């Protein structure tokens, strides 16, 4: 259903026609001046810095894992423009319902690298984001989070508020029934949800053309009566425009929007994955040239506003991030209570018994030594 009162980008980029919204090209040249978001140079530089911070933290996380200092990690390399453009458009009163590959969005919402590291060091405290009442924990279970976002959207309408929900899923996740159900619910309830499909073209090893016969993923919005748009996910400005427009639409009470952010997962699915098994180096190299940071930097160079000492900045970030990692590593030992204490609001006697029996075993073990 294409309504006449839709914002222009949704009319001009009807996903059935398989067009992709782009504002700058690979070389950083503006291809659509009319759609260039009105951002001052300072804001653009700030966006770049956030993307660089995310990338640095992400690369360091992979390296900590490789050093055996951290457990399985899910890299974000190449998807930073999506994450930061979203982060810049999420208001404090908006909700964030993440998947597990939105590092930059989480950071921009107030999650610290230390928390992220603590989570991947195997401690739930790190992944609870306890100080952020409107950020849900990451969803490892594919696609389930989309329903949760819709439920929050219903609450927002029920409470007659004008905030929105931002939620994410991967290209693989669009095959789960939950994806279609959530879009359907969002349509029926006019839930103010901005759905993002991060189409990084691989669900672990499975390429998107094995995942679906749809011409693109944004088109899946059509059957559910939602506006949808395919956006160049490596183009910061296109992503910014898409999020700004989608958020305004959702906040105005008109309902949900589906954004397909077309990108490429330059890293592995997780640190346990080896992409050389299922894709070739040429493809990876090609997408390296289309990198979102590279493109934004070229844009700034062309425009003559690039003024960053990137190497120095990276060094600064590295030492900040490493300090956070060391703090996470030094976090106090995981107490037995953390296994039991959060399962119920009031711990049932059965759990108290199990905990007490385990403590008896621990003291037996202690005495035996």
């Amino acid at each position, binding site marked *: 259903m294409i309504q006449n009162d839709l914002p222009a980008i949704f009319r001009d980029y009807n996903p059935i026609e398989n067009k992709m919204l782009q504002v700058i090209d690979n070389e950083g040249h503006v291809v659509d001046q009319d759609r260039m978001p009105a951002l001052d140079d300072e804001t653009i530089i700030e966006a770049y810095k956030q993307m660089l911070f995310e990338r640095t933290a992400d690369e360091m996380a992979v390296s900590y894992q490789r050093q055996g200092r951290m457990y*399985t990690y899910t890299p974000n390399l190449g998807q930073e423009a999506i994450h930061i453009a979203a982060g810049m458009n999420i208001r404090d009163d908006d909700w964030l319902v993440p998947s597990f590959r939105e590092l930059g969005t989480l950071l921009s919402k107030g999650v610290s690298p230390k928390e992220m590291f603590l989570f991947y060091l195997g*401690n*739930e405290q790190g992944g609870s984001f306890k100080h952020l009442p409107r950020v849900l924990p990451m969803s*490892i279970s594919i696609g389930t989070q989309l329903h949760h976002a819709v439920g929050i959207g219903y609450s927002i309408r029920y409470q007659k508020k004008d905030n929105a929900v931002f939620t994410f899923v991967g290209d*693989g996740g669009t095959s789960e029934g939950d994806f279609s159900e959530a879009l359907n619910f969002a349509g029926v309830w006019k839930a103010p949800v901005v759905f993002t499909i991060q189409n990084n073209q691989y*669900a672990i090893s499975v390429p998107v053309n094995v995942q679906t016969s749809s011409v693109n993923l944004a088109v899946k919005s059509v059957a559910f009566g939602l506006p949808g748009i395919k956006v160049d996910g490596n183009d910061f400005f296109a992503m910014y425009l898409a999020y700004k427009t989608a958020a305004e639409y959702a906040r105005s009470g008109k309902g949900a929007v589906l954004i397909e952010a077309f990108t490429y997962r330059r890293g592995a699915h997780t640190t346990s994955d080896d992409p050389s*098994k299922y894709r070739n180096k040429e493809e990876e190299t090609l997408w390296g040239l289309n990198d979102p940071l590279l493109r934004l930097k070229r844009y700034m160079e062309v425009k003559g506003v690039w003024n960053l000492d990137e190497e120095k900045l990276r060094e600064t970030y590295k030492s900040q991030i490493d300090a956070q990692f060391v703090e996470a590593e030094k976090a106090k030992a995981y107490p037995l209570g953390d*296994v039991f204490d959060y399962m119920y609001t009031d711990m049932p006697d059965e*759990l108290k018994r199990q905990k007490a029996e385990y403590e008896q075993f621990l003291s037996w*073990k202690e005495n035996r030594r």
Partner: protein
Amino acid sequence: MSVMTMVKAINDALDIKLSEDNRVVVYGEDVGVEGGVFRVTEGLQRKHGADRVFDSPLAESGIVGAALGMAVSGLRPVVELQFEGFTFPAFNQIVTGISRMQNRSRGKFKMPVVIRFPYGGGVNALEHHSDSPEALFAHIPGLRVVIPSMPHDAKGLLIAAIESNDPVVFMEPKRIYRAIKQEVSDEKFSLPLDKARVVQEGTDITVVAFGAMIRECQKAIKMAQEAGISVELIDLRSIYPIDRETIRNSVRKTGRVIVVAEANESFSVGSELIAVVNEEAFLYLEAPPRRVMGFDTVVPLAQGEKYFIISPERIFYEIEKSVTF
């Protein structure tokens, strides 16, 4: 004979069945080109073709639901679900379709479907990658549930599962996928789907376990031997149906029993086994039967998993407590 890991043994079983029976198809997420995230199906697509070993879209409900359709129309699908924590989207299809179709059709349709997935903890994983949901499946009438504890059994049981006309949930203890190597016959062989195995005979106490816990129990038994306790260890192998005879004979002999399993204790296979013990050997018991199992909590992430996982020391502690009761 070849030295095999469990991964290799399962791969071998799939290879044998794919080779000899063109009704067998193998599919799931990442099983084709990649050969599975644990490489269990490695090389099978290349050898048997992409119409027999293939990647499916990422949708467990679709994977299992389609298997029902294949089974009623002449194929024998062996599907892989990537982790135990991702089986739940398929639960509806398993409970409402796969497990009931033989009965619903009054035997017109057989249900030769194998649903394989890795399960269990001890690998420092993210959430939904460390659970042991065998009781959830064992509770569904119409399913067989099988768990091997070593490469030899994995091969023989999987071949039997593929040849069975009943749906079989085949749970693979990922922690010992590559940890145990064993001489396994290269030939085709199968093992009964409903028989436990006495791993080691003993006289003082019976320990019943399965999957990755067998190895932990064997470590505990060494400690028990040093303490002068003779332990009989039973590897259940078939979770449903339970081999009552083997349990009965053992507990009537020893008079004491503990069940060791990773899953949450309440409403578990451990609970079921103790019910069987009470029904079959009540008057022979010299100590209360006991479950040595996971807490009724979510499996903690890596830092907290040390509390949850059943250590050999804890098994020995419970053996000793039972024997000195």
